[in-house]
């Protein structure tokens, strides 16, 4: 119980994170000292103009990139101390990732795409497919289990991607502009789906967006501009 209370209060902390890219001779300051916490069960939108550093921030959150300076803690563990393999396994178990352009594997059908996330952590094929099918039903794609990505619409693909992110029961799902490639209506549907999953499963969601309608319908918004948080 005690542990749960602690976990609920704080899942991730960013401590004075800086990210600087070296572009030829020029330095690009994508993040200039960002500090914030994410609590368990949060539903957070990251908003800001193009080039403000949203993707950079999310890439650090998903541990696919490393900060130039500062400390990132997951459940109080400094992720800088993890090896590449440890980070990969941590991502697999704890972090679900949803991409703007879905990034489904073309040779796998919907169910196999979702099951893939389980199979790489050596869950048996049968169990993986079972859980994948279950997850696809939860995101409303129970009738499209055997469709290959090329036969799915954008919204359907993003549902598959969300199912893939959630099937491992991660503590957090991180999505970089999950609705940007979709029309407004489909985008709102995806947002509703995420909200519903957040409420039902208490999964933490962090996503970036440009969409004003989405920003207005989310309680917790982190505003970023020119690599700095503003609020």
């Amino acid at each position, binding site marked *: 119980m005690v542990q749960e209370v602690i976990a609920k209060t704080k899942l991730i902390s960013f401590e004075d994170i800086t990210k600087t890219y070296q572009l030829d001779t020029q330095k690009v300051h994508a993040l200039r000292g960002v500090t914030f916490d994410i609590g368990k069960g949060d539903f957070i939108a990251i908003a800001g103009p193009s080039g403000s550093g949203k993707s950079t921030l999310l*890439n650090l959150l998903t541990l*696919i990139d490393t900060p130039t300076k500062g400390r990132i803690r997951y459940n109080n563990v400094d992720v800088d101390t993890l090896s590449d*393999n440890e980070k990969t396994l941590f991502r697999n178990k704890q972090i679900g990732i949803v991409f703007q352009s879905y*990034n489904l594997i073309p040779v796998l059908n919907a169910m196999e795409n979702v099951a893939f996330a389980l199979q*790489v952590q050596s869950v048996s*094929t049968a169990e993986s497919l079972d859980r994948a099918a279950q997850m696809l039903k939860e995101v409303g794609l129970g009738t499209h289990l055997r469709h290959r990505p090329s036969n799915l619409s954008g919204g359907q693909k993003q549902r598959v991607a969300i199912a893939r992110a959630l099937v491992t029961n991660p503590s957090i799902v991180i999505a970089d502009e999950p609705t940007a490639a979709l029309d407004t209506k489909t985008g709102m549907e995806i947002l509703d789906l995420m909200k519903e999953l957040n409420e039902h499963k208490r999964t933490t969601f962090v996503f970036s967006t440009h969409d004003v309608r989405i920003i207005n319908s989310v309680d917790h918004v982190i505003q970023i501009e020119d690599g700095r948080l503003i609020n």
Partner: protein
Amino acid sequence: MNYFQFAIRNIMRYKKRSIVTIMTVSLGFTALGVLGGFLNNIFSRLKGQAIVAERLGHLTFAKSGFKENGKLEPEKYLWNKKELTDILGVLRNDPSVDLATPRLRMFGVTSNGKASTIFITEAIVSADDQKLIKTNVDGRTEVDGLITLNSKKGESSDVIIGSELASMMKIGKGQNITLLTSTKDGIANALDVKVVESYNTGNPATNDKFVLSDFSMAQDLYDTDGAERVVVTLKEPDKIKETKEVLLAKLKSAGYQLEATTWEDQSASYKKVTTLFGVIFRVLTIIISVIVLLTVTNTMQMVVTERTKEIGTMRAIGMLKNQVIKLFCTEGLIMGILGCLAAAPVLLIISTILRVSKITFTPPVASVPVPLVMITNPVNIVVIFLLFCVVAVVSSFLVSRKIANQLVVDSLMQSN
């Protein structure tokens, strides 16, 4: 979804490139398969030449030291009648021995009355030689056009001579020549013999001096009732090394300290040719493997580049670097195997066409044309198969390792 199924689907997805990879492996496999088949054929023909045409049999027994000094002091290495009978008895009673036959060899000058030239005569027991020339070599029993003396005619002064010797001396069938040589004690001796046949010995080095003569005639000429060598053919020639030791031991316990040489040790040309061609084959194998490696690496590189973002995605979802490499190596391995399998029918067709078309050629260090066919050695095929599987896997490994080690975020940035 296991690696195998996943790999198969990816292979199907990039059909054109997969076909290029498979064809490359296939071509390499075919090239080495055909080349290896030809070489095996040459080796096997030369082997037949040595064992049968040169009458070396499988093993030659002689007194210890004969091989080194037998030519200098031949009389020292001669067995008397009792010794020969004993030795033949031991050998002929051994179940591994197919044939054991005594031999004498003499050198001298032959003359047709006008011209003379040097000769070497190998004296054979005609009944034994009838059997020896039917010795099975790699499944073949006849060396084309091979003949021997027929003792039933009872003419012990019949000889068969090398075709080049016959044409040098302008000697035809039925004509006589004189053999000038010396007895074991060094006394000059001469004998008129009748040429009943001439034939190509298959070896240019002997074709102009070879005389096949009757053993008992040679014994008279040499003034002996013994022999200097016993040539043996075996029932299981594959076990020649072991059998040799067993037979030597048996002879030793019968009181004879002998030496035995295999046909391979005696046939200088066989060794030279197989060594030379072995080297050429190995060099070509390396060159072809490198070409296949480069081509497969190149096509793999294109596929991997196109799939960089996908690799980034899989890494982001939780696939380890090693798992990515394993996936690509599986793809490479499958294409390597498919390439080799695709080559099998091609090899079969080429081999059949050659066999049916009956093309002949004259291998090096031989003067008789032999059929140009492939003899496929299963061990060679397995080695080439494994080689190309390794080549395909190495290509995949080299290409995928680079991408797998790249930062996940960089792989994901790839735009396509």
